[in-house]
């Protein structure tokens, strides 16, 4: 049986000059669909329309309307003229259809049972550029494209699918549906009629389908403003006005009443926000359009109610079902936020109307080339990773914020300049004796401290030298032995190095811009600046190293995105490429951690927190693609290897017994540690203890909320580490973990790394993740994030004023230099105070009370590190503890054998000088001050809020002698050498431990030694009548030196393992050749 195709009536509505009318009519006339009729409706001004149409489509009908009532009413008029048609093909007069377009659309309508079919629209001038492939809408009636602006048609969209809106231009509508819907709404004359028709069709249960194989070129002369909007009732309205009011009408009548009220309320909030933005930017047109739309709606509220009733009578879909067909969120707000984040305010506020964003501007050559930011942060040049911009043209505009290499380089240069302005005085000022800024000994002496068999810490100890001395001495090599430069370099460069480390940490996880912001956030964190201000070089070392350590740990634990390349195939140790193997990578991490631990032992705890944090996070949110297993083994192996690399320190810890945990830090006074709110702000000092200190943590929290996908996994891990760190810091700060009290500042450095990384990830989330999220708190969070980051960086400028980041110009200790007793025999000063204040390393007596000694003056390079094993020095701790517990009033007598001439009780590292320097007060236990005051043999010689100094009335020098028949001890020998004349029959006592390490030689022969019931050796000088001369001599087997040498050797071997054995093979090869040659000669002979 012969079947006929359904009849289709194409309706072209032309207005005014209709510049593309002929082409449109001709393209329809050329359709290969046989049952297609053409009806041209001339809207108003119809001069020569019939002739123009006839010239290209002689069989077309032309209907002339007296006035321009708009596109929709014209279509309605046309529909009334037609009977028996199955479909209407409503067309603008500026379109050009492919010959098979109508047929393909009809076929699609039948195949999918669609009520409305829309073709694929391409650019009129360049058919390769897509314009629309159907559209979607949010609940507020804001239409969103399904394609990128300017997307090239590679056939990637050629899949038939449901859409929410069939954009105007060419629309195939089933005639019965059109009749049911009562056609277009005559109130909507122009712009928005397509949304309205489709919305109502959806409500009525009709499908709307895009048929991408049907291609139509659309000139969009109305939308682009090429033609004026001259329809009746819209002549004085701008396109923006029309778009706004029609969207509002659709929303007001498109939902059930309750939903409509709620949606309108939300829309009003958004519109108020937009009006505010518009008014701030002076965009009065937009503000007027928004206000006018609400006025217009109020004016036509009856019509809106009538429409709603009509729609309810047709309604098939409920509101929730209808909403599921739409896009979630608020398209307009999201677009604003994304554009604001990427391109700044001026650009963002111009996102509406759409045509404004379509201004194409020339892309300068430099901008095209400058999309990467690599020099400072990347190992290799890479391009900006914001590849999937919604509006491709926009991202090439010169108004983008910090997406070009030039902008980023300028920002880095500015920040670097500001940093060096802020640290200008650190270059040349006399460094005060605060924190760990004790003047370093010479390069050679520092090496000697590492190898020494005996050190003067406390009352003297023979424990192995701390590896930190080795690190310092090694670093001293690079400054040609100018050891004084090292602390300055640390003060100036550690924070920037750490910031670069954060940038590297975020590499591959966020765009260069996000990395840059993360790095700057790290530099602006209060901890780094406070550490500089307090001279905490040890903490600064952690600030510099932890970002790198965290990145390495993430790589090895296979955190998503952190290992870009698989490990290379195993190669033998020492050969090239070993570094890139898994073993090599692990060894690299071990060496970095060992290096950092040598300077700041609490770094090891921080590394443990990172590993535990990642593991814990994976328990809840696994990384499916990760192949890493065995976190405990990894942690154990790391700790074990670090212990091997730091063998002297390991031995110290093993022999320290109950004090072994003190290697990680001494407990601070719970009354002087930062409060929990300060800890949350990463503040341990004066900088950042204000409201703006909350901004960066807030931004990090918002980032945690915004991140999605792999970025979210990383953010979760960072947040877990941050939370664990804060919990540990809080517990430690309150002394709830007993003697385990790692330095909280080092842990706060890890917290800073996580916060800054989260901030960077948050920026990445704004760039990539936000547009995938529906409207809601995420958008609000995004706005807040940006605001907080901007505001948080401002106070950084405030810290630049002093030129030394508020590092004091003078210290408490320096003001005590006049305390040195003039007597011979040497003397020690006992320093008591909070561990964060005392400028030398010591041991803990009680929470908040560290005890340390310096010999013959102020602390120096030999007191930077102390073994956790206090050994004989425990006599000092016990004496101090006894006094603090009210168990003695003779502290002076108890300390006199150690040669302690003065006790310095510190409450701060530097004196507070109003307007000059502001230092945090970290009081020693008040009971200690009371106890010292109560001692009958101490006298207070200096009392300020910062320090109290007591002199020991029973002081007799480190080396003293009593005359025959007298118990009174008098200082012996000079302060520079332990030798001098002796009185025959006298008794010499030396406050040097261990007693067995020293011998008193009298005229070259050792004197008898006794240590009965005391730790101080007593030497009996012979009673011979001759002149006697004695000397105290250290006799100690150089075991420490051997251990240090072994450690250095191990470092060297592993360093050679990173390919250097292979590189230096010629050395070995050469020897072998010579040896072989000699061997051959011998055989020949």
């Amino acid at each position, binding site marked *: 049986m012969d079947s006929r195709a359904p009849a289709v009536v194409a309706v072209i509505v032309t207005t005014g000059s209709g510049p593309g009318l002929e082409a449109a009519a001709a393209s329809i006339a050329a359709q290969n669909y046989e049952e297609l009729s053409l009806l041209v409706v001339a809207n108003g001004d119809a001069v020569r329309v019939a002739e123009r149409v006839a010239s290209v489509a002689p069989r077309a009908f032309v209907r002339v309307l007296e006035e321009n009532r708009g596109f929709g009413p014209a279509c309605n008029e046309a529909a009334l003229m037609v009977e028996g048609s199955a479909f209407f093909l409503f067309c603008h007069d500026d379109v050009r259809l492919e010959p098979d377009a109508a047929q393909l659309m009809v076929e699609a309508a039948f195949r999918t049972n669609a009520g409305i079919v829309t073709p694929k629209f391409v650019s009129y001038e360049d058919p390769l550029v897509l314009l629309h492939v159907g559209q979607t809408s949010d609940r507020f009636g804001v239409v969103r494209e399904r394609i990128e602006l300017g997307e090239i048609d590679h056939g990637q969209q050629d899949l038939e699918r449901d859409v929410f809106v069939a954009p105007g231009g060419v629309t195939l509508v089933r005639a019965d549906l059109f009749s049911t819907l009562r056609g277009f709404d005559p109130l909507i004359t122009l712009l928005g009629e397509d949304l309205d028709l489709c919305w109502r069709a959806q409500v009525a249960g009709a499908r709307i389908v895009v048929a991408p194989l049907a291609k139509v070129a659309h000139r969009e002369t109305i939308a682009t403003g090429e033609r004026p909007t001259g329809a009746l009732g819209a002549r004085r309205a701008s396109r923006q006005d029309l778009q706004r009011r029609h969207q509002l009408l659709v929303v007001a009548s498109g939902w059930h009443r309750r939903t409509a009220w709620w949606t309108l309320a939300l829309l009003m909030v958004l519109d108020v926000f937009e009006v505010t933005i518009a008014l701030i930017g002076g965009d009065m047109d937009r503000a007027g359009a928004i206000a006018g739309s609400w006025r217009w709606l109020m004016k036509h509220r009856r019509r809106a109610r009538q429409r709603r009733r009509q729609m309810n009578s047709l309604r098939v879909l409920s509101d929730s079902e209808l909403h599921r067909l739409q896009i979630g969120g608020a398209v307009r707000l999201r677009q604003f936020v994304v554009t604001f984040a990427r391109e700044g305010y001026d650009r963002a506020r111009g996102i509406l109307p759409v045509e404004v964003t379509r201004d194409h501007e020339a892309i300068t050559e430099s901008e095209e080339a400058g999309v990467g930011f690599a020099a400072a942060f990347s190992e290799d040049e890479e391009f900006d990773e914001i590849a999937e911009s919604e509006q491709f043209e926009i991202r090439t505009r010169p108004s983008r914020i910090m997406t070009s290499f030039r902008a980023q380089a300028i920002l880095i240069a500015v920040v670097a300049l500001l940093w060096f302005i802020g640290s200008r005085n650190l270059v040349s000022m006399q460094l005060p004796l605060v924190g760990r800024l004790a003047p370093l000994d010479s390069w050679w002496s520092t090496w000697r401290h590492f190898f020494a068999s005996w050190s003067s810490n406390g009352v003297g100890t023979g424990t192995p030298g701390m590896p930190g001395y080795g690190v310092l001495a090694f670093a001293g090599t690079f400054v040609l032995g100018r050891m004084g430069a090292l602390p300055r370099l640390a003060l100036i460069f550690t924070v920037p190095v750490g910031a670069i480390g954060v940038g590297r940490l975020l590499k591959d996880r966020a765009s260069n811009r996000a990395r840059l912001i993360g790095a700057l956030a790290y530099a602006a964190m209060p901890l780094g600046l406070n550490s500089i201000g307090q001279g905490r070089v040890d903490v600064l070392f952690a600030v510099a190293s932890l970002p790198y350590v965290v990145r390495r740990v993430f790589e090895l634990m296979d955190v998503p995105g952190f290992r870009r390349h698989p490990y290379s195939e195993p190669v033998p140790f020492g050969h090239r490429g070993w570094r890139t193997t898994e073993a090599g990578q692990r060894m690299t991490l071990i060496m970095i951690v060992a290096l950092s631990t040598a300077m700041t032992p609490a770094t090891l705890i921080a590394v443990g927190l990172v590993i535990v944090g990642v593991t*814990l*996070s994976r*328990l*809840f*949110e*696994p990384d499916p693609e990760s192949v890493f297993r065995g976190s405990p083994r990894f942690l154990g192996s790391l700790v074990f290897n670090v212990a091997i690399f730091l063998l002297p320190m390991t031995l110290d810890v093993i022999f320290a017994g109950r004090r072994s945990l003190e290697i990680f830090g001494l407990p601070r*006074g*719970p*009354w*002087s540690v930062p*409060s*929990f*709110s300060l800890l*949350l702000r990463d503040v341990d000092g004066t900088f950042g203890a204000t409201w703006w200190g909350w901004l960066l943590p807030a931004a990090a929290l918002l980032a*945690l909320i915004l991140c999605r996908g792999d970025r*979210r*996994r990383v953010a*979760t891990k960072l*947040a*877990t580490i941050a*939370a*664990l760190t*804060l*919990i540990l810091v*809080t*517990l430690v*700060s*309150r002394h709830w973990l007993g003697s385990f009290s790692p330095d909280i500042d080092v842990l706060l450095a890890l917290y800073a790394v996580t916060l800054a990384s989260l901030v960077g990830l948050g920026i990445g989330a704004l760039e990539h993740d936000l547009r995938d999220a529906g409207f809601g708190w995420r958008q609000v969070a995004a706005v807040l994030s940006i605001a907080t980051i901007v505001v948080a960086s401002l106070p950084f400028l405030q810290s630049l004023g002093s030129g030394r980041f508020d590092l004091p110009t003078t210290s408490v200790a320096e003001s005590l230099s006049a305390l040195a007793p003039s007597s011979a025999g040497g003397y020690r000063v006992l320093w008591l105070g909070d561990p964060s204040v005392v400028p030398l390393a010591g041991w803990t007596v009680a929470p*908040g009370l560290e005890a340390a000694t310096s010999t013959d003056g102020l602390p120096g390079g030999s007191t930077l590190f102390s073994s956790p094993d206090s050994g004989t020095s425990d006599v000092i701790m016990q004496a101090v503890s*006894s006094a*603090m*517990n*009210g*168990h*003695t*009033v*003779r502290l002076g007598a*108890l300390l006199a054998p150690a040669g302690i001439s003065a006790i310095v009780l510190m409450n701060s590292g530097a004196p507070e000088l109003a307007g000059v320097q502001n230092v945090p007060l970290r*009081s020693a*236990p*008040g*009971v200690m*001050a*009371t*106890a010292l*005051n*109560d*001692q*009958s*043999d*101490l*006298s*207070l*010689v200096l*009392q300020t809020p910062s320090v109290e100094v*007591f002199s020991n*009335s029973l002081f007799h020098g480190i080396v003293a002698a009593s005359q025959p028949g007298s118990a009174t001890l008098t200082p012996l020998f000079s302060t520079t050498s332990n030798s001098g004349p002796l009185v025959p029959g006298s008794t010499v006592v030396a406050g040097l431990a261990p007693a067995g390490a020293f011998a008193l030689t009298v005229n070259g022969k050792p004197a008898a030694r006794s240590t009965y019931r005391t730790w101080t050796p007593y030497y009996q000088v012979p009673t011979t009548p001759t002149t006697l001369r004695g000397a105290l001599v250290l006799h100690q087997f150089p075991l420490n030196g051997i251990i240090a040498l072994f450690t250095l050797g191990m470092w060297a071997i592993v360093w050679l393992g990173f390919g250097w054995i292979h590189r230096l093979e010629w050395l070995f090869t050469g020897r072998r050749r010579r040896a072989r040659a000699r061997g051959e000669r011998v055989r020949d002979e």
Partner: protein
Amino acid sequence: MSSLRRIPLLVVLAVLLAATGVAATLRHPTNPSTLPNGLSVSINAESTALYCTGLSSASPGRISFFNTANAARKLSVSVVSDLGRTWTGTIELAAHAGQVVQPKVVDAPASHRSKSGRVTTVAVNYGVAVQISGGGVVADEIQGNSAVPCVSQGVTRWYAAGFNTLVGSDAYLSLYNPTGTEAVLNVSAVGATGFSAPQNLQGVSVPAHAQEEIDLGRNVVNTTNVAIGVKVLRGSLAIVGEEDSVGTLSFNQGVQAPQTHAWFPAVTTANGATAEIRLSNPNNKIAHVSLDVTLGNYKIAPQTTTLGPFTTGDITITPNSAIPVAGYASVSLHSDVPVVAGLATGTGTWIALSSPQTPSSSYVVRDFTGLGFDAASVTNTSSHSVTVHVTTYAAKGQVVVTRGINVAGGATVTLSSLISSPLTRPAGTYLVTSSRRSAIVTLTLPSHPRGLYVVAPLDGR
């Protein structure tokens, strides 16, 4: 799915973090500034010290030591007079043994005597410092019928109320500097006319290990109920107030800070006796003071008064028509702002001062004055009941008997049933300990009328 897993993790972390933060915030760590002391602390000490001051040569003052430890102790005694003369010596004190030192006697060695044997110049006042090799030694300084404990450390703040500088009365502050540092102090007074800070009592210095006497009557003339505040600007001092009321000497031990609660466990209500609680308000706020008087089975309405800023006042306990004459009353003071209180007992002609008692957990009850006790009581200042044990020290280092008694919260009970010796005769030595640091033991010396002299037992401070 992963987001669902992430949320529990974040919730767990947030809860843990919040819990830690709340716990850390709720617990406000404070920097302790008070040295632990007391008999329980000093008993195991490596060395301790006792300081006594205000020992007059007129009515020869003396110090009575007692060794509560089970081992002998060596005491290095250093006596310094207001003339600057010093005497040092050592005393071996056997376990559970006592000894008396009279500074006036040791201050008159041969070098200070004329050929006739008379001391050329007799000092008026003495300060004594005793260093003890170990702990557990307590001491009382006794002047006439008044006795106060020697202290083991100096103070930086000192307050006392109730001094009279009326004609016929003298009041002094006796200061001893136990440290090797010169001490500097300011003295202020609060009387009926308000606050005063006499210029010559500002910046007073006391050299290291020296004793000084300040005559309050020269600076606050002809005034009754004078309260004194001492602020030691540098160093610390052992301070005691002395009242010479028509020839009757008494010590006022004072307190280290004004208090909102104070206890006077044994206040006489005897016929012919007078007893009043003298008060001083050293604050700039009005103080509303209330006294709860417990007297046998009598119900006595609280006695109240209001003190203006920097003023003094008093509440009479005896004679008081609201308080019957029925033995010893236990008086507890409550005030909305910290005040200084003192007890003035007497006959209407003269008064003897004593300071409020401080709760502790151990007391040495010993007849240091040689007069015996008229009354011995223990008061439980807490709301919980405590068990009080009495241990009797026997000769030769033996501890003989330990007996216990339960004292309800807020109650005062007599110790006469636990102390076997007759109270009115020289008695033995006892150690009274309680299960809480809330007990106050109070003794009164035999006098007529009863209870005119209130002394505190020694708690080792």
